[in-house]
Each structure stands twice: as structure tokens, then as C-alpha cells.
């Protein structure tokens, strides 16, 4: 192919340069890119690579104590040239403070599906976290954008105000309850300001009768909107693309093609900061526009209203298709009705965005128009959030590759470079490979990191058992971890005893996921919140004693305790023996040594140490009898001194390798696959 689009070449070269900063081996692709896109790609590659290598983001000195006066904006501050994320509970409002604390590196991901703070911050050019121990407010920080925001909110009811702030300024701060609805409806992208908003802004100015000078005016006013809404990756992308086109128009060169402008703005954004590539918003924004730019021009559409309707549907599909694996990877579900819902939302948004932009200037006058429109959009999101969701766990790198390989042949067919029958046949190969890879079911035991508490997931070959769920506030994290691991429903949920650091998170799990059977310690009273939650969902609930056996998936579960009731919650906890076929695991809840003495599990491969490693459990005698090779301890910061050094010594003396969630995050013990 002839390199006719220097913007595309620059962009692709820049992309490869930024990728090579993280995976240098990818540089082997450079010659191929050069053959395809020519000199611009080489220039883009060298400039972005050089930028990243010569001017890397400096690492702040971790562990240093810091004290002084700081300006805090949206949870970030500056210190000696480093941008730092502030960590404090409760978070600090914008303002000037005297702060005292220390610098630490951002945390890597601690659970499947959990936030990867390191990547999230790196994408924003931040490498340090300022842990604030003491904060003294000196003065508030006036926000010069406040009058604009007030005019936007004037005369609107609270839920509508938040939706409109999201639509017009991309401000998701107030949207706590509505945001998940938009996500499940497939409309969350509306709340990230991007092309549509910039388009309205520019179109309004381009209508002025000023000849070609109107383009310059629009170009000069683009930063105003950027300042109002904040430089999110999607808005930066849209502004750059619009800016390039306006510049072209002003200079009499004509508007840049979409692909051309997309490539150029990709190059510029990566040259500014190669790490931006790691941001999810950045990736979604570019891929969606790429989908639109590649598919829409190639589509033969009938004229008239039917063409408009089909075009809208095709646009929605074209923007969504490249995003699917990313959305599944990060959110673990995909709203199947999204293209349809987006088609319905399109006219509403097409009215709401320009009205909202106008409302930034005019205030309350427009409220009677905006209010009903936004209410309709909210109702649509509410209704559509009940629609079917496709669930899928985290996607592996080969999974991404297979997906895009499968998209390629239909795309070539659309461009009439390949007959459709061949294309579908070719596309089905990666799809089959992907499905085949999901056939062997993992056999493993996960100790999730829920701070101080226990949450253990056993995947037993097609059926899953969750034993405890950490404290109540960790419930969402447990649900996210389950979804990320591809767990759609739980065969068995076990609550070993009614301590909050064991049953708490299960409340959320039971509310979010279907459960086949619940096993509860007899220590749970009948009016316990968990018992009620299970009843409300219609989950069959048993209170088993020693000797109960269940077949689960390819393995089994045996209850070893309680044989007798004592009235003490810890002592009446459930001891479980999980049989994975090739290995067995003993889970000891918070049971004391007196109970351990009465258990005879035989040798096991894995031991979930009793009571977060407290001295009251894990006796010599038990270790001698069950000889575990691996010991799991669910612990976090705690005032009890768990795990106790004596217990750690005992485990080591008996040859058990200790894995602690407080030091290692989630721990996976893998026993292989069930075929």
C-alpha cells in the first residue's frame, strides 16, 4: 500500500514507540511498519521513543518524610517537580494545606479485578503517593470555573444536575448511584466528554458569518472548553482532532480526514506523555473513533430515514466492536442491548449536549427544556440497566489478539478486499480457538486480599465455592474479583462463623451473584442479616455438622466440624476439607487448638491457617498430622498482632511455605485443569 497518510504513519510510529518503552521486543515490528507506512512512521517512532528514553518520568524518593505547605487540587499536589497523589482518609477538599507525611510508591493490583493504582497513576504522569499523616487547612482554593458550573446546575433537580454535569463537563463526581446504571445500560461513554461535545462547541462558532476567520476563532476557543471540563484523555483527543481540522480549514488546506487527524493527535498525545497510552479512557477513546473511521465510510447506506436509522445503529456498533475485550477485561460484563440503547439515547444526547453548553452561559432559563430531556435519559438508563449482560472474566493477551484477529476478515470483506464467505470462515477460526481455550476448567484455591479477614475461592472444575467474604466494606472488591475470574454464579457459599471479617462481604456477594447452596455455621442466629439476605434471594441454606459431604464440580467438600455445639462463635465455626482430586486443602476458619485436636483430616497440601495466624490455633500436633506444604494466612493491618511470630515459626519448622495476603495480595494455589 502506498503511504499517502503521513498523519496515520506518525500516529502508528508513535504508538509503536510508546509500546516499545514498556515492551522493547516490539521493536522487531518497526521494519514492517516502515515498509507499510514509510518515513513518517519512522519519525513518529523515533520521536516518541526518544521522548520516553531521554526525558523519562522521574521517580520520587520513596520513603522520604515530607512536611510543608501544599496546594491540593482534585486529590493531587506538586512537590519538587513531582506530581503526587494524596492518600488520606477522609480525602482533602481542594485548598491550601500544611501537610506532613511520607512518600510511597503506588500500589500494584492486589486482587483480580482490583484497581491497579500503579498503572492508573502512571497513565496520568504520577509515580508517587503522598501518605498524609497530619493536615492543617490554611485556605480554600477558589475555583474560577464555579460560576459556569452554577449556571449549568441552576434550576435543575439533583439527579438531573449530576447527569448534565457528566454529559457537558464529564464530571462524574456526584454520579454515585446513577453511574452503575449507565454502565449496565452501555451508556457510560456519554459521561466522558469527547467528540460530540467538541463538535457542538466548534459547530456553533463555525456558523458565525466571519469567513475563514471563524475557524481561527473556533480554534482559539477550543482551550476554553478544555479548561472548563478538564483535560481528560478523550477530550484531549477530540480537541486535538478538531484543532487540526480547524487549522487546515483556516489555512485553506481543507479539513483533515478523520484517520489523518486521529493519527496526528495520537502522535501528539504520546509525544507529550508516552505513558498516557496505559490509561483506559485513552484506549477506549482512540479505539472507538478508529472503529467509526474504518467502518462507516465503507458502509453502503440506503437514502432517507432508513439510512439514518441504520447509520446510527452501524455507528454505535462500529464504535463498540473494538472496545469489547477491553470492556470485558476491566468491567467483566457487557450490556448486550448497548447498540440499540445507544440508538435511542442518540437524539436525547444530541439535544442535551448543545443545550447544556448553552446553559453554561444562560443559566436557569434553559432548565425547563433540559430537565425533562435529562429525566428521559435517566429513565432510559434505568430501564436498559435491567437488560441482559454478557459476563466474561479478565482477558489474557492472547485473548485480545484472537479477538482482533477475528475482527480483521469481516473488516476486509466490508472493504471488498475479501469475499464474505471466506471472511466468515477465517473469522470463525480465532473464535473457535478462543472457545476451546476456555474448555479446560481451572482447579485452584484463591486467598483473596480483603485486608484483615478471610475470603477463599475454590474453583473445582466448572463449579465454584466461596468460603467467607471479608468485612462488609470489602464485599464489592470480592464481587469484582469473582467476576474477573469468570465466576458468574457460585455453586456453594460458606459462612464459617458470624464474625464480621468472615461473613461481612458475603452480603454483597449474595446480592450480586446467583448462589446454589449456602452452608452456614450453626452459630448463625435465625435473624442474622446474612440469613435474611439468603432467604430474600431464595437460596437454600443448611447448617451442617461434622460428616456432611458434597460433590462440587470435579471435586468434593467435607465438613469436619462442628461435631458438638459450645455456644462460642469461633469454636462453632465450620472446618472444611476441600478435595480438588489431585490435592486437598484444609480450611480452619477461626477455630482454636482444642478443636484442632479433634480433627483428623489426614495429610493435606494446603492449610488455611486458623484465625489469621493467632497463637490460639495451628498447634504442633495438627501440623504433624496434616503436614501442609503451603500455608495461607488472610491478614491485614490489625491491632491483635496477627499473624503471631510463634505460629510463623511453627509453620516454617514443619516445612510449610507461608503466603500472607497482607504481604502478597491475593494468592492463587493452582492444582492444574479439569479436562
Amino acid at each position: 500500500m502506498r503511504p499517502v497518510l503521513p498523519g496515520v504513519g506518525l500516529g502508528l510510529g508513535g504508538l509503536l514507540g510508546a509500546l516499545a518503552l514498556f515492551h522493547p521486543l516490539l521493536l522487531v515490528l518497526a521494519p514492517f511498519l516502515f515498509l507499510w507506512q514509510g518515513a513518517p512512521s519512522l519519525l513518529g517512532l523515533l520521536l516518541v521513543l526518544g521522548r520516553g528514553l531521554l526525558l523519562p518520568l522521574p521517580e520520587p524518593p520513596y520513603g522520604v518524610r515530607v512536611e510543608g505547605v501544599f496546594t491540593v487540587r482534585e486529590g493531587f499536589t506538586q512537590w519538587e517537580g513531582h506530581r503526587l497523589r494524596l492518600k488520606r482518609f477522609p480525602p482533602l477538599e481542594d485548598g491550601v494545606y500544611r501537610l506532613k507525611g511520607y512518600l510511597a510508591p503506588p500500589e500494584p493490583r492486589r486482587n483480580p479485578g482490583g484497581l491497579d493504582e500503579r498503572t492508573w497513576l502512571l497513565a496520568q504522569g504520577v509515580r508517587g503517593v503522598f501518605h498524609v499523616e497530619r493536615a492543617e487547612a490554611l485556605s480554600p482554593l477558589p475555583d474560577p470555573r464555579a460560576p459556569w458550573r452554577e449556571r449549568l446546575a441552576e434550576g435543575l433537580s439533583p439527579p438531573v444536575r449530576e447527569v448534565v454535569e457528566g454529559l457537558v463537563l464529564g464530571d462524574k463526581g456526584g454520579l454515585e448511584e446513577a453511574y452503575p446504571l449507565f454502565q449496565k445500560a452501555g451508556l457510560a461513554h456519554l459521561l466522558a466528554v469527547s467528540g460530540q461535545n467538541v463538535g457542538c462547541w466548534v459547530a456553533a462558532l463555525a456558523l458565525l458569518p466571519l469567513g475563514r476567520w471563524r475557524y481561527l476563532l473556533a480554534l482559539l476557543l477550543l482551550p476554553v472548553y478544555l479548561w472548563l471540563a478538564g483535560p481528560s484523555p478523550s477530550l484531549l483527543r477530540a480537541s486535538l482532532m478538531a484543532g487540526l481540522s480547524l487549522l487546515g480549514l483556516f489555512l485553506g488546506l481543507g479539513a483533515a480526514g478523520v484517520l489523518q487527524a486521529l493519527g496526528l493527535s495520537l502522535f501528539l498525545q504520546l509525544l507529550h506523555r508516552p505513558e498516557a497510552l496505559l490509561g483506559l479512557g485513552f484506549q477506549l477513546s482512540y479505539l472507538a473513533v478508529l472503529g467509526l473511521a474504518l467502518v462507516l465510510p465503507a458502509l453502503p447506506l440506503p437514502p432517507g430515514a432508513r439510512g439514518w436509522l441504520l447509520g446510527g445503529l452501524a455507528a454505535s456498533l462500529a464504535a463498540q466492536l473494538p472496545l469489547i475485550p477491553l470492556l470485558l477485561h476491566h468491567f467483566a460484563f457487557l450490556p448486550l442491548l448497548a447498540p440499540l440503547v445507544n440508538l435511542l439515547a442518540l437524539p436525547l444526547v444530541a439535544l442535551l449536549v448543545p443545550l447544556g453548553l448553552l446553559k453554561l452561559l444562560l443559566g436557569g432559563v434553559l432548565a425547563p427544556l433540559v430537565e425533562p430531556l435529562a429525566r428521559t435519559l435517566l429513565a432510559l438508563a434505568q430501564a436498559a440497566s435491567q437488560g441482559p449482560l454478557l459476563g466474561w472474566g479478565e482477558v489474557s493477551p492472547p485473548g485480545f489478539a484472537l479477538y482482533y484477529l477475528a475482527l480483521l476478515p469481516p473488516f476486509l470483506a466490508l472493504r471488498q478486499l475479501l469475499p464474505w464467505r471466506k471472511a466468515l470462515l477465517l473469522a470463525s477460526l480465532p473464535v473457535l480457538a478462543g472457545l476451546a481455550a476456555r474448555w479446560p476448567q481451572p482447579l485452584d484455591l484463591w486467598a483473596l486480599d480483603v485486608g484483615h479477614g478471610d475470603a477463599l475461592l475454590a474453583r473445582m472444575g466448572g463449579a465454584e465455592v466461596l468460603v467467607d467474604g471479608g468485612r462488609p466494606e470489602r464485599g464489592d472488591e470480592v464481587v469484582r474479583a469473582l467476576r474477573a475470574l469468570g465466576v458468574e454464579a457460585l455453586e456453594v457459599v460458606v459462612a464459617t462463623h458470624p464474625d464480621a471479617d468472615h461473613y461481612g462481604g458475603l452480603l454483597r456477594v449474595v446480592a450480586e451473584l446467583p448462589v446454589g447452596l449456602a452452608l452456614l455455621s450453626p452459630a448463625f442466629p435465625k435473624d442474622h442479616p446474612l440469613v435474611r439476605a439468603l432467604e430474600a434471594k431464595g437460596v437454600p441454606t443448611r447448617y451442617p455438622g461434622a460428616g456432611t459431604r458434597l460433590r462440587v464440580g470435579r471435586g468434593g467438600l467435607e465438613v469436619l466440624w462442628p461435631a458438638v455445639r459450645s455456644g462460642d462463635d469461633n469454636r462453632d465455626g465450620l472446618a472444611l476439607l476441600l478435595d480438588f482430586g489431585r490435592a486437598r486443602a484444609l480450611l480452619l476458619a477461626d477455630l482454636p487448638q482444642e478443636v484442632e485436636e479433634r480433627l483428623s483430616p489426614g495429610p493435606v497440601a494446603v492449610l488455611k491457617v486458623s484465625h489469621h495466624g493467632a497463637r490460639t490455633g495451628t498447634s504442633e500436633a495438627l501440623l504433624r498430622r496434616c503436614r501442609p506444604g503451603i500455608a495461607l494466612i488472610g491478614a491485614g493491618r490489625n491491632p491483635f498482632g496477627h499473624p503471631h511470630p510463634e505460629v510463623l515459626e511453627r509453620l516454617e519448622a514443619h516445612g510449610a511455605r507461608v503466603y500472607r495476603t497482607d504481604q502478597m495480595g491475593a494468592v492463587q494455589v493452582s492444582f492444574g485443569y479439569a479436562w
Partner: protein
Amino acid sequence: MRVTAFAEASFTPPAPAPVSLNRASLEELEGLPGVGPVLARRILEGRPYARVEDLLRVKGIGPATLERLRPYVRP
């Protein structure tokens, strides 16, 4: 059998800067491990301290408590 840990801990927070026994506020003294409002007040009333060991004069601080506090305080 294969064990995979998600995140190896590589960073331990620095020890807090020692609090001055002679100049710290009541609030700062209460932030010391094992020191409540009552003991903090007694430490305040026992000023001045020439050495950290002078803390033994304060009622409620024995050799064990002194050793526990030692990394966190200076005269």
C-alpha cells in the same frame, strides 16, 4: 502445584519522626503507641526531660513502656 502471589510487597513505610517530649502538643503525645489522654497529660506535666530515660519518672511508665516508646520520642 503452583503458587502465584499477586503483589509482592517491596516497600515498608518509614518510621515516624521522633516526637519531642518537651515540645510536642497533647495531641501529638496521644498519637504515640500505647499512650492515651491520661498518660499524655502526665507526660506533659512531667516536663522538662533532659533524656528519654527521664520518662521513668512519669507514673504509669515502667521500663517496658519506655522501651516501646523509645523509637518514637526524643527529649
